[in-house]
């Protein structure tokens, strides 16, 4: 799989590269879906928001000037499209201008700001996790992405190191993750 950064993928998308487009969609699918679902939408309605957000991205590909802000742009667009869908259901107030709508999205968003920001940061951590080596990725996933952390014996078997070295390895892996996060203005 290509590991191009967002700027490279966006340029390729502007040239009609369908593979680059699919990579972008796959890169951000979890973020978009998480915001829609955490806003209380059913799977079906979240799917509608998902499609609308991707259509917006396709529409605005030529005008996205800050590729490094693509994740934030998608998160905000997802929030807005969620609000619009809820507006159609008359579950939130209407707006007559873009400015008014922007304010209403902020004031009436079904997702509180702190939850919205948390989802964005979680997505960034996952993105950075995907950029570090596989052994560290496996270790950190087993330790921190499970409801119950995996025992060291299981982790040791999974990554092929002695159980006694899991503690120091875990610390090194977290340092790698922190370094990977630096380029996202962490």
């Amino acid at each position, binding site marked *: 799989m290509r590991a191009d950064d967002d700027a490279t993928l966006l340029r390729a998308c502007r040239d009609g590269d369908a593979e680059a487009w*699919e990579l972008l969609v796959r890169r951000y699918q979890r*973020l978009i*879906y998480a915001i829609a679902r955490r806003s209380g939408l059913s799977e079906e309605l979240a799917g509608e928001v*998902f499609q609308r957000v991707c259509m917006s991205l396709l529409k605005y590909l030529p005008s996205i000037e800050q590729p490094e802000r693509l994740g934030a742009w998608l998160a905000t667009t997802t929030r807005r499209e969620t609000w619009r869908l809820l507006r159609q259901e*008359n579950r939130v107030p209407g707006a007559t201008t873009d400015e008014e709508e922007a304010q209403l999205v902020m004031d009436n968003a079904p997702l509180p700001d702190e939850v919205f920001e948390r989802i964005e940061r979680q997505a960034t951590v996952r993105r950075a996790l995907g950029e570090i080596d596989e052994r560290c990725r496996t270790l950190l996933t087993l330790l*921190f992405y499970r409801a119950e952390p995996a025992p060291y014996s299981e982790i040791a078997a999974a990554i092929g190191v002695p159980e006694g070295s899991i503690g120091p390895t875990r610390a090194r892996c977290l340092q790698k993750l922190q370094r990977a996060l630096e380029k996202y203005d962490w």
Partner: protein
Amino acid sequence: MQPIPFETLVDLAEGRIAAAQATALRARVAMDREAAAMLASLEELLGLMRSDDSVDAPEHMIQRAARLMRQPAPAAPGVLQRVIAVLRNDSWTTARLAAGLRSVQAWPRALLLSAGEHELDLQIVPHGEHWQIQGQVLGPEGPGTAVLSNDGERYAAALNELGEFALAAVAAGRYTLAVRQGTIEIIVNDLEVGPSSQPS
């Protein structure tokens, strides 16, 4: 004072240190600005990972979005491919299902139709006694035209560089919409425009 090892800070952030020892360690950390910042960063990072219960979007959603930019199968030069559009989503139906109501007629009404490798996004907007159809072809871009017609009437509009178009407002009735882009012509049959508008 000896600096606190990073691994110890990780143990503390992770909660692997016994309570009494952790209290003493935190007091030490509080006096070391660098260690305090690192501990706060680690605690936030671990908290974000541990609380992340997000899941992947269903594969069919991802593939549907991925198809928005898929190139059409090459057609023989000069041969027009006519594709009948199929309704994928209707904001009235979606809103009705979501709200559990008998009828929801919020304007503008949004319709999403699939036509082969293309998708057609339509909005029906009331204009006094008339209705305007605005739309966008999603997929491969290029110039084109949209033509709305019924018996004896014909309204045309050009697609802009984003595949968007806006037709003149028309009276309520049943129309055929033909959107042509390159060698593809997307046909929306029996598009009912008006208070109960819906394509059949």
